């Protein structure tokens, strides 16, 4: 929680800096996960796993 508070203070006090820093983190997570899911989708076995992953979300 201390780290959460520290970062929130940074965001509040540096309104012109935080977004660029956060974008790298938020975007890379989406890009990497998307790449991984697409790779899984290339094989029959992978597609079965993907279905299970998607079922977990629903």
């Amino acid at each position, binding site marked *: 929680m201390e780290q959460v*508070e520290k970062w929130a203070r940074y965001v509040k006090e540096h309104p012109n800096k935080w977004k660029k820093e956060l974008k790298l983190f*938020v*975007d890379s997570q*989406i890009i990497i996960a998307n790449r991984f899911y697409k790779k899984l989708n290339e094989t029959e076995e992978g597609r079965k796993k993907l279905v299970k992953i998607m079922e977990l979300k629903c």
Partner: protein
Amino acid sequence: MKREVSDKTILEQFAEDFVKIVEKHCKYIIVSGFVAIIHGRSRGTEDIDMIIEKIPKEKFIELHNALIKAGFECMQTNNPEEIYSGYLMNSTSVRYTRKGEFLPEMEIKLAKDELDEMQINTRIKIPDINPIIYFSSIETNIAFKEEYLRSDKDIEDAKHLRIIYEDEIDEHKINEIKKQIRRLRMKK
């Protein structure tokens, strides 16, 4: 808190593109994790949570078709009648992505009670954060996260929002919403 357009994350651009279609068909709100993330909370997520007003099936079919035309697809099924009657009307969410992509996802639910309706009726835009997207109020997001959702991640999201809005938050409003959450969602 003002930002440059080029600073938009993939999530934010996805949300903007999606809501531009939805708002032509019904009222909506974006709630929960994305509200914290767009305010700078440093954590990952794959989906954005949206609540839409309770619209009749015919109107939902129009919305679904517009989303398809705009390049989105529903992960569960492409049949809008099934999405509406089999999922949304049973309080089950459905997920839309850009066609051919797995992420990000927009998780959509229909408003299910007066608490959801209240959130939609008191929805806000936060121009310094994003001028296009409607959010449920900051107080509502904090109340849900602290009173109802309550995972470590949610408590941290609430803490983040409390710090960002520390001089503006209406504590009385948060407590009133928490009372409604206990009455309607937790049957206390």
